[in-house]
């Protein structure tokens, strides 16, 4: 063994080494990541924010959106959505690749790196991607005059936190997926799309009949969006709801990381 190999050093920094290699892998896709991070939200902003926004304003002014223009109303939701989708991309695909498609996690685990370190490394790298996407989008929103630079900066932290919570949960879920035949299709069409549509993204959740509102209550997107609207442009939010939204995301983060740790450890130890 080379004398430079230090198990103590690896115990402290193993997750960083994994994140380092994940970011290197991501850099191979940097063009696509940049286009997705900038292009996708821009399309939504123009098409829905401006296009549908005019329709909303002409018909009901700002009464249905808590006193702000429609584009301002949806901006924190789109910011949250960018964070959550970025987190999903950087957890679901690397975990499927690592365990199943290219089995790289087994290569990592044949070194002193442990399962929980691999999970944490993937998670940290996902956060870097989330931070990048959120900041790019936020700068666009500020540049377009939708949000104010001084008053809305904390909404980026909220969006990143929501992304972190959702990413942790997705990582835990995907670590348990053995057969991926239908998983990604079901995830995309039956989980992500409904969450996007029923999380108070384009209209307040309370506009929905009460029996549909629980979809929003369990959705991290709704909790992140509500916090984003509070910190983004000062939408009314009670102290209780502020606490509940924060606790829900924190619980998702903690549970996601716990499940990931257990599943990564067990799946690597045959």
């Amino acid at each position, binding site marked *: *063994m080379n004398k430079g*190999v230090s*198990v103590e050093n690896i115990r402290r920094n193993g997750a960083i080494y994994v994140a380092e290699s994940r970011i290197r892998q991501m850099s191979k896709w940097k063009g696509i990541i940049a286009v997705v991070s900038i292009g996708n939200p821009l399309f939504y902003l123009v098409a829905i924010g401006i296009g549908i926004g005019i329709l909303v304003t002409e018909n009901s002014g700002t009464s249905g959106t808590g006193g702000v223009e429609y584009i301002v109303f949806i901006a924190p939701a789109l910011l949250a959505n960018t964070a959550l989708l970025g987190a999903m991309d950087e957890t679901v695909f690397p975990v499927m690749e690592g365990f199943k498609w290219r089995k790289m996690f087994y290569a990592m685990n044949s070194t002193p790196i442990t399962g929980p370190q691999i999970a944490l490394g993937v998670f940290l790298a996902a956060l870097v991607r989330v931070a990048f996407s959120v900041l790019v989008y936020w700068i666009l929103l500020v540049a377009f005059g939708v949000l104010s630079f001084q008053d809305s900066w904390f909404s980026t932290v909220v969006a990143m936190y929501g992304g972190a919570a959702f990413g942790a949960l997705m990582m835990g879920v995907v670590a348990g997926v053995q057969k991926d035949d239908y998983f990604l299709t079901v995830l995309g069409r039956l989980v992500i799309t409904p969450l996007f549509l029923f999380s108070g993204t384009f209209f307040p959740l309370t506009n929905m009949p009460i029996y549909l509102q629980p979809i929003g209550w369990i959705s991290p997107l709704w909790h992140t969006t509500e916090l984003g609207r509070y910190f983004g442009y000062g939408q009314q939010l009670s102290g209780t709801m502020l606490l509940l939204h924060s606790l829900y995301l924190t619980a998702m983060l903690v549970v996601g990381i716990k499940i990931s740790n257990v599943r990564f450890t067990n799946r690597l130890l045959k």
Partner: protein
Amino acid sequence: MPESLISARGLTKKYGDFTAVDGIDFDVAKGESFGLLGPNGAGKSTTMRIIAATSRRTAGTISILGRDPEEHGPQVRAHLGVVPQQDNLDTELTVTENLYIYGRYFGLSKKFVKNKVNELLAFAQLEEKADVKVEALSGGMKRRLTIARALVSEPDILMLDEPTTGLDPQARHILWDRLFRLKEDGVTLIITTHFMDEAEQLCDRLVVMDKGKIMAEGSPAELIKKYSTREVLEVRFGSDRNKEVAPILREMCERIEELPDRILLYVEDGEALLEAITAKGLHPNTSLVRRSSLEDVFLRLTGRSLIE
């Protein structure tokens, strides 16, 4: 007795009702090239995973460099270089990047790894492919890269699971040459294989495994001496006549194995036996006299061929 790096007693691994490894004992000495020979499903890879601290044993004890791999996984793996049965390289990264990131997993400094990468590229004869994405490499190149990757930390023990399966003869010989150099450098090698020629080429000592158990142990020469004769005469009379002449041939040799397409006759002098058979008026369609191999040992021990 040389210093023992690995010592296993009663090592057992069960998956539900299936026993993959069934109470095996073995020791591996420092600098030794130790082989696990057996057909697919014999328990070789499972044994390798237990040694590599990536599988929990069901019973028994195992110590690697004095440590229990279950309790000290990272510490044990710090000493190992692992070449799995299937290459698990990152195919989207280049050859150099694969070596680099793997070195970092061992906590090695960026500077050290960068220097080491050049040395490993030369060892694996991949200098010209240094900046090529792994997905563009041939099977043999990928295998050499996987072995080079396992050497980045200068491991005390290099573990190779079926190192040449799926490679063409030329690629196999290049790989054997590389492994032989490592052996000369004093690296302890643990190799699983179902190729008897590979085991004979690379292993100082080996265990023959079947259905999770160790059937025999020794150097290739010792095993052949103990479980087979010096020579083997292979004769083919055609699938219809093989059955007919077998009882006559049985009386003329120490041991006989009837395979679907040919008959193996175990004797000290194959040419003399062939003459005797011909003298009896039995004329085989084809005949071949060869030295006994580990294939014959395996056939003797299990009644089955290694590659079925």
